[in-house]
């Protein structure tokens, strides 16, 4: 009896240790997912539509889990990145098209991260013309020098900021019944013909299930050396990360609905509007809290997006890549990385650029690109020669293909009703 309880205690400890050991790729990706684009889009959704769009959260979470799980599984089973697999299975031309699309979508995200940096520091009264180039330079050096690896944990710890939205959401005394009902209700049919409604829903999908995440997560799984055997623990890391992302997203929408929407401020034009959602928690100091959180999230994502784009593109197209290489050994890699950062920062410095609008727009672009990346992922995860026994199950295929069809239809409808 006693030995049995010790054994079960030990196996429990082993399991916990295993879980902690693999906490990483999935959870980090999930945290970076709540970047500037995420915060602005969720805030705008709550401010503009109140609780109305909360119904999207459950289907988006399910789709996110399925998509991220597919990615992580592919990484563990094949030991290769997503762009490597696309190249090997679909040839040069298709890879080239996917990579160009990825560069465009990710460039939008990079602009958004710098927009987040600019607008968070503007709350302190610092002009973007000064801080954006400075932060761009810091990011560039930090990543190239490898300092990023040692401060990743700091970024991650600072992500505790998201808890503020949960607290603020509670303190704002939202109509819990209405919010809960809106979460489980089915969408109203009128939305299908409403351009701004469709725009927002695609933005929500795009910011939560962003294409770059699939490339980044799979690369991280490979980098960590997770194999098919150890994959079970990684799966939990991925699933927990997805749930965490969407719980935070839900609370951001609720907090904004209970404050901004309730005050009648239906359009977020800059960060100071978005910061009002934290008022129930921090009162006069809401803007400080919001600025710090947004700055951390933006800088975190800005450190990841350009480099992960450069890796994905160079691996897919067969250019030398890697920070352990010298500049002349991997020129395309370093140039692409540098140009993405420099241009991203320059765009944000355009005078009177509507930063929040641009951020939400980039997430809509993510949403439109997503189904195409998903089609490739579905073809790959259903390839028995590649995946062996780890091929997609029927349920996964249904969810993923439904996501593809629904998002494409919404994008088409959005164009029709523009």
């Amino acid at each position, binding site marked *: 009896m006693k030995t049995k309880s010790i054994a079960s205690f030990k196996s429990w400890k082993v399991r916990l240790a295993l879980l902690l050991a693999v906490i990483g790729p999935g959870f980090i990706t999930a945290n970076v997912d709540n970047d500037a684009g995420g915060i602005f889009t969720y805030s705008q959704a709550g401010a503009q539509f109140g609780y109305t769009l909360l119904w999207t959260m459950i289907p988006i979470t399910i789709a996110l889990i399925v998509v991220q799980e597919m990615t992580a599984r592919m990484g563990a089973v*094949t*030991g*290769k990145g997503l762009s*490597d697999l696309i*190249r*090997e299975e679909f*040839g*040069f*031309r298709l*890879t*080239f098209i996917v990579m160009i699309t990825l560069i465009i979508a990710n460039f939008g995200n990079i602009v958004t991260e710098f927009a987040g940096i600019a607008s968070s520091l503007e709350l302190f009264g610092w002009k973007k013309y000064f801080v954006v180039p400075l932060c761009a330079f810091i990011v560039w050096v930090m990543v190239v020098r490898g300092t990023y690896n040692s401060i990743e944990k700091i970024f991650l710890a600072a992500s505790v900021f998201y808890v503020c939205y949960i607290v603020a959401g509670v303190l704002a005394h939202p109509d819990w019944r209405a919010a809960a009902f809106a979460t489980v209700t089915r969408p109203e049919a009128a939305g299908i013909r409403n351009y701004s409604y469709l725009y927002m829903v695609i933005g929500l999908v795009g910011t939560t299930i962003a294409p770059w995440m699939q490339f980044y997560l799979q690369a991280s799984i*490979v980098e960590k*050396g997770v*194999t098919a055997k150890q994959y079970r623990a990684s799966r939990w890391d991925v699933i927990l990360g997805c749930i965490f992302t969407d719980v935070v997203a839900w609370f951001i929408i609720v907090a904004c609905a209970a404050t901004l929407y309730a005050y009648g401020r239906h359009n977020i034009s800059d960060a100071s509007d978005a910061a009002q959602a934290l008022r129930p928690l921090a009162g006069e100091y809401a803007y400080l809290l919001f600025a710090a959180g947004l700055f951390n999230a933006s800088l975190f994502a800005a450190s990841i997006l350009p480099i992960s784009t450069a890796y994905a593109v160079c691996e897919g*197209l*067969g250019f*030398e890549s890697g920070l352990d290489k010298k500049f002349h050994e991997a020129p395309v890699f370093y140039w692409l990385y540098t140009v993405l950062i420099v241009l991203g920062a320059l765009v944000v410095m355009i005078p009177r650029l509507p930063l929040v609008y641009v951020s939400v727009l980039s997430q809509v672009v993510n949403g439109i690109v997503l189904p195409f990346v998903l089609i490739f992922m579905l073809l790959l995860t259903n390839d028995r020669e590649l995946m062996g026994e780890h091929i997609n199950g029927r349920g996964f295929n249904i969810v993923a293909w439904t996501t593809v069809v629904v998002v494409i239809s919404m994008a088409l409808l959005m164009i029709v009703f523009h």
Partner: protein
Amino acid sequence: MSLVALSELLGATVRDVSGAVHGRVREVAVAPQEHPTRIAFLIVATSDGERVLPASSLKSCGASVRAADDARRWEKYAPSDGVLLLKRDLLDQQIIDVHGRKVVRVNDVELDSALVNSHVALSVIAVDVGARGAIRRLTQGLVPAFTMRALLEKIPPRVIPWQYVDLLETDPARRVKLKIVYEGLSKLHPADIADIIEELPAAEREAVFETIDEDVAAEALEELDPKVQVSLVESLDSERVADIVNEMDPDAAADLLEKLPEDRSGEILNEMEPEERIEVTQLLEFGKNTAAGRMTTEFVSVPDNGTVADAIDALKQFEGSREAVATVYLYSVAYKITGAVPLVKIAVSPSSTPLLHLREDAVTCVPDAPDDEVAGLFDKYNLVTLAVVDEHERLAGIITADDVITMLRHAS
């Protein structure tokens, strides 16, 4: 003789002797067991399934392919593991560029077509890894062929000759059939092999390590990044690891086994040769960051009443690492260390010279001397090797300078 790109050949229309179009080229196959570079046959996608067009009946080859025989004589294609399919196995895949010492992705394959006895003989001559192949594949069918050719002429080619290409294949049985033995890779410096291994996906790493000779694998394994080292060893079976570890320097072997889970290192030790096992087990008992943990037990020592000829005999019989022979150690009757002779002195002295005439004081340390003390001794006395002695002043092992450099680099 002229060059044909694989990407031009794929999809080309195929006509038989009558001149009628019968299908398109779907694959180009090499049968390495018959000939390492020659194309054995084309697979043609016809309205009647996939057919095999033997290379011996090719009449012309280019934008369209012409056969010298009747399409009805082309047999049905039966998939076989023993043939290398250039599109599936090579195009867009990663290969090892043995000459450039890196892993690269194939953009296109260059074939040579020559007229032999009134039929066209095709053979693989190089893989294209540069912009030329990339742009050809990107623009194919979108830009008229002659414009494309003119454009491509201007791009400097970046090709790897076929003899420098090592293919990656994860299926062991297929590796044998395709005669993939990593001959070129094995000839590289172990540090370069390690760099290449680090760039490969896990399954491909295993494939290479299962194939190359144990002694090459052992040297390369020593040079690998510790993280990659452990994950690679964990994926190989214990018997193979034991074969490789047998060939490693005992100190490197001990370092490696220490990083593995206990049951796994036990398994590997059990599979090892008794002599190596004892040495490694002893080293494993010492603390990791001490002189004993860093030392190797393979060194050259001779009685101090011997001559240069005795020292040279001992060197000839020595099987340990090259770094360890830099110093020949001397001992007295009770195996007590009495001095050291640098290799240079032995090399330039007549063979009858008594070793005591060449003797210098040996710099020594105790087994539990910490890392910084070891490094300090190397620095102070400009050492190449340092003797580690036990409480009876007997030589237990030596530390070589290369281990100290590794130690310092990992410490900073």
